[in-house]
């Protein structure tokens, strides 16, 4: 992001956000009839530099650490808060745009403004400059995530490429026996499919199927590869490895049947649900295997709802 854009975005946010979106609502207040000396504990313990003075819910003033220090210097710790507080106070309404708060901070140079509700004028919170910064940063973070997602949208690709047939091919290599990296291919494919603008349901089914297949490569083989072909009508995922192969394919497809070794089971895998899960989440699954040669698994997920051209 360049500077001018950041500035504009922040300005935009100060109009978008309301004072009440950023204020601290859990605040300390004091009554005006208390002696100034009591402020020490409140200001110190809460690490704040000023506190609103409230009588019966009504805001009557604000007393700051500067007021406290002045009393300390002049030996007036027994004076009542009401005699030392600032009575003419500037407030903000909770429903005002944040930019009003920014302007008031600039205009008056105060450290804080009490925030009251427009309806009953009761104190609802307090706003400091750091509340504004925090509020904007939080909003920026959300906006950034949205932007990031938008930027990666590549859904127009099928429309932009001119050909009679378009296939996208994504290839992933899977390391055998390394559970620390298991799932990387599936997660990568998931992100890629999202960027292509596929529907969440399709992405979920494709990535879950791929994950299960990937786990099989990791748990049972010395490695393999996953290739996903995407065209406007379907996702075809081909998972291959070089062995050891499945002796009884039919049995392997039965839910609950597993040949997983103990160490795999300890990690929560090998429940005999992998291949049944793939079957469940895909539209078509074809499994071919030759002992000592390897396994070839083909998964098809149809894209009936592919948002091509929309």
């Amino acid at each position, binding site marked *: 992001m360049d500077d001018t854009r950041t500035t504009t975005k922040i300005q935009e946010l100060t109009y978008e956000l309301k004072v009440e979106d950023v204020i601290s609502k859990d605040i300390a207040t004091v009554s005006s009839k208390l002696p100034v000396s009591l402020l020490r504990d409140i200001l110190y313990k809460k690490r704040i530099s000023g506190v609103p003075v409230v009588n019966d819910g009504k805001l009557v003033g604000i007393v700051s650490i500067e007021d406290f220090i002045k009393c300390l210097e002049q030996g007036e710790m027994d004076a009542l808060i009401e005699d030392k507080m600032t009575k003419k106070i500037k407030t903000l309404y909770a429903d005002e745009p944040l930019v009003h708060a920014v302007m008031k901070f600039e205009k008056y140079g105060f450290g804080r403004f009490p925030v009251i509700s427009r309806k009953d004028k009761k104190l609802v919170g307090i706003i400091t400059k750091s509340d504004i910064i925090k509020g904007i940063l939080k909003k920026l973070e959300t906006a950034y995530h949205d932007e990031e997602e938008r930027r990666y949208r590549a859904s127009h690709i099928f429309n932009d490429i001119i050909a009679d047939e378009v296939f996208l091919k994504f290839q992933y290599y899977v390391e055998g026996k390394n559970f620390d990296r298991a*799932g990387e291919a599936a*997660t990568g494919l998931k992100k890629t499919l999202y960027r292509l603008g596929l529907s969440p349901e399709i992405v*979920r089914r494709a990535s879950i199927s791929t994950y299960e297949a990937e786990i099989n490569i990791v748990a049972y083989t010395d490695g393999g590869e996953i290739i996903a072909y995407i065209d406007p009508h379907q996702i075809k995922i081909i998972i291959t490895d070089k062995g050891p192969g499945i002796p009884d394919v039919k049995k392997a497809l039965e839910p609950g049947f597993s040949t997983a070794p103990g160490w795999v089971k300890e990690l929560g895998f090998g429940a005999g649900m992998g291949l049944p899960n793939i079957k469940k989440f895909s539209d078509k699954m074809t499994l071919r295997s030759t002992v000592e040669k390897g396994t070839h698994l083909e998964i098809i997920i149809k894209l009936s709802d592919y948002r091509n051209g929309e």
Partner: protein
Amino acid sequence: MINLKDIVQKLDLKVVTGNIDREVSAGYSSDLLSDVIANAQKDNIWITLQIHVNIVAVANLQELAGIILVNGRQPEEATLKKAEQENIPILLTELSTFEIVGKLYELGIHGNRR
């Protein structure tokens, strides 16, 4: 829908990573990853004793709202790193699965409707 932040607060869960400002639809508890893949649903909170890095992959694929690790178990280093990267909330409790699920149920977190 209940906010994960409220759950964290009410059940005194320790947040080790992830943004907990998100909605929880229902709960699922299992230590078998394929079972979670088959039966958990989007925005579920998942209760497990598994702590290795693949729980993050499962949560990510299923778009779960978060993972609660039970019995005071700590996530492995790699799990933590991955969860941070993928922004998957990982929450810790000293309680057993049975107890934490009971408390979640009391808060109104139920299973997925079939």
